[in-house]
């Protein structure tokens, strides 16, 4: 079945299933059709007087998702057509769900029919990427990213994403327990924020539970097979990512420590930076800009795994002085930035608020 994912262009090709006729004392046989393109339910078979009765008192009609406890009807509007009544639901009927349409005019037998809205083709979501993907990550890492192949339903991460010691025991509440989960707009990328209270060395949880990650240890981050996509399809099997933990990184980012590799003018080789640490990949994509001699940003393709960053030019490099612009909010995976280490002491914030510029001469 062809499927388009953008909301305004939904096309439902096959629709509706059964009509169950409850004993009917209506003038004719009532039939209900679902016009998927217009998202209207069309009721035929009402007599003109029944039609006007219904239009005058829309409460006689009830549209509900099947199997619910509330007697409340979905929001909708009714409109009269030549020989039919049109039901315009305020919200689109959801794919794969069954709805009930019931009409009960006074002194008439009730009419009720069930409508099954055709389902999308559902793909089980897969964990496609994990960042940072480095062999060893610092013990005071603040943030992990999980990327999925399909949009994931909100509200499950706390339950279905867990951290385990190498012996299989579970690490108790390592992540910040916010009421809002941190997804990107597509809901394919989840940000896991370690509880900053647990990340600080030698305090708090060290006394009772120990820090979530110990240097030299290995852990498994497990995504449960029960985690469901937004369409309701589970991952299927548990997926585990191995984490090897190194020493905590606790000093500000100093771009002077980076190695920048300049290509020759006339080539299409990338400008590449090797970082001295693991930079947050999302921040590296967003907060490093290469500006050309003409003052415009180079619209190149950016690649980064957090350990390095490179930009491939759209055309051959022209000779000149390029500038790497570094946003002061750039962070490494441990939350250190250009101003301060994450565990900065008194007065450490606010040292740098302007972008840093580095010369990148290409000749």
């Amino acid at each position, binding site marked *: 079945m062809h499927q388009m994912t953008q*909301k305004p262009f939904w096309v439902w090709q096959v629709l509706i299933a059964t009509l169950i006729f409850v004993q009917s004392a209506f003038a004719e046989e009532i039939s209900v059709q679902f016009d998927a393109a217009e998202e209207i339910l069309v009721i035929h078979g009402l007599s003109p007087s029944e039609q006007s009765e219904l239009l005058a008192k829309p409460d006689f009609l009830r549209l509900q998702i099947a199997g619910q406890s509330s007697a409340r009807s979905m929001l909708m509007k009714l409109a009269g057509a030549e020989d039919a009544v049109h039901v315009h*639901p305020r919200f689109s009927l959801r794919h794969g769900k069954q709805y009930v349409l019931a009409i009960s005019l006074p002194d008439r037998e009730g009419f009720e029919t069930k409508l099954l809205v055709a389902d999308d083709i559902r793909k089980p979501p897969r964990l496609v990427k994990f960042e940072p993907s480095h062999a060893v990550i610092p013990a005071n890492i603040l943030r992990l990213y999980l990327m999925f192949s399909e949009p994931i339903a*909100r509200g499950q991460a706390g339950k279905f994403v867990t951290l385990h010691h190498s012996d299989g025991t579970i690490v108790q509440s390592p992540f910040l327990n916010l009421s*809002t989960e*941190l997804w990107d707009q597509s809901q394919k990328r989840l940000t896991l924020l370690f509880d*900053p209270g647990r990340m600080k060395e030698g*305090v708090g949880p060290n006394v009772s539970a120990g820090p979530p990650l110990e240097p030299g240890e290995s852990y498994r981050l497990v995504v449960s097979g029960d985690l469901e996509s937004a369409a309701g399809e589970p991952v299927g099997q548990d997926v585990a990512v191995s984490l090897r933990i190194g020493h905590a990184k606790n000093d500000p980012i100093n771009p002077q420590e980076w190695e920048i590799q300049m290509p020759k003018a006339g080539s299409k080789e990338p400008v590449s930076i090797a970082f001295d640490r693991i930079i947050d990949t999302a921040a590296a994509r967003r907060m490093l800009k290469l500006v050309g001699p003409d003052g415009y940003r180079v619209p190149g393709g950016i690649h980064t795994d957090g350990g390095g960053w490179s930009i491939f030019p759209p055309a051959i490099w022209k000779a000149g002085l390029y500038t790497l612009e570094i946003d002061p909010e750039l962070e490494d995976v441990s939350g250190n930035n250009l101003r301060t280490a994450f565990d900065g002491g008194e*007065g450490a*914030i606010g040292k740098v608020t302007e972008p840093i510029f580095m010369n990148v001469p290409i000749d």
Partner: protein
Amino acid sequence: MFSTKSLFAASALAFTLTTSVFAQDSVLESAGALAFDDGNVLFVGDGEAGLVHAFDLTSYGLSDQKNYRLGRAQTFEGRTIFNNLDHEIGALIGVEPEDVIINDMVVHKETRQVFLSVHRGRGPDAEAMIIAVNNGNLELVDLNSATHSSKSVGPVPTTETLEFGQTLNMLAITDIDYYNGEILVAGVSNEEFSSKLRRMPYPFTDEISTSSVEIWHAVHAQYETRAPIISQTVAMLNGEPTLVAVYACTPIVRIPLSELKDGAQVRGTMIGEMGFGNTPLDIVPYTNSWDKSENVVVTNTNRSAASLSLEALASAEAMPHGEGVKPVFSVAGVQQFQLPMSGTLHLDTVDDAFAVVVRRSPEDPRNIQLHTLPLPFFFDRADHVVEMNFEDGPDPFGYKSAPPLDYN
């Protein structure tokens, strides 16, 4: 089954109807934190769009709820306005209860009307909406009938960012507060660990100021340079408007508003600690009508709620800090009064006599209730095993002689 004839009729119909009777697209991409100004303007945090919306609901038709009885505060009786609120909203919008996400709740004080920010669905295409409670009924708020303005609080897709194919930093807006012609917006980013506090005038102008707040954190026994504020309120402390904020790892901090200038690096004074392993949900001001004291109530994920008096907040000494100070792991600092609330998901006050909560029922956590709680103790007698509730139990305050409540 349909006849060929009726299918043909359906396809013919498609040509005759070109516009939907609901000719509106929601201006909301998401609907999170809610707040009212002193009048009829509803602020809605929209993290997905990176916006704070302002809807003037005057023309929507706010509806006075003064005849809707909320319970009887004198006898500690609250009222369940809805059982299975998620089921009821689900019925209204045609989805199963698990596809109803209630993100926040706010009370319009003048009319006592309750507003909820709701998502229909859990996916990226979830529809965002505002639902109003009107004399025990649920209503979808037609936002198109309201005068609308909005203000960016974060990066929004621009031609440039889209061209470069970057993922976008998103701010999950955790709280909005209105005070004296301004709103304060707190949030957590999915890509940055920031203590930035956004402050902007309303009606919106081009002005927006962000300040970073540094606090001494007793649990860590060191300066916490960066941590996101989760919830906040503005209170008059010692005659000065002061931000009272709770952080992700639950210190309570006070900062005079006058210090929150654009680009400023501010030292907040940490005056309390809600304890480790706990995330605050809301901080809401209220007046204790018994002793006329001004207070705030803080609700939490893992603990019952706590009440703190403004007097105590104002006079609290800054918690000790510096060399030789040992970390604090439990509740500490300014005096807190524990409140007997549990399962609270959202809370706001209605007036001096009642608060309203979205909560898990104390009897059945699957039952999401919209329920009122008598002030000043946020205590509903029926929720608790107390002798006064027993048929043959003592009745020192004469509760049983009070006439039975007749709810409209």
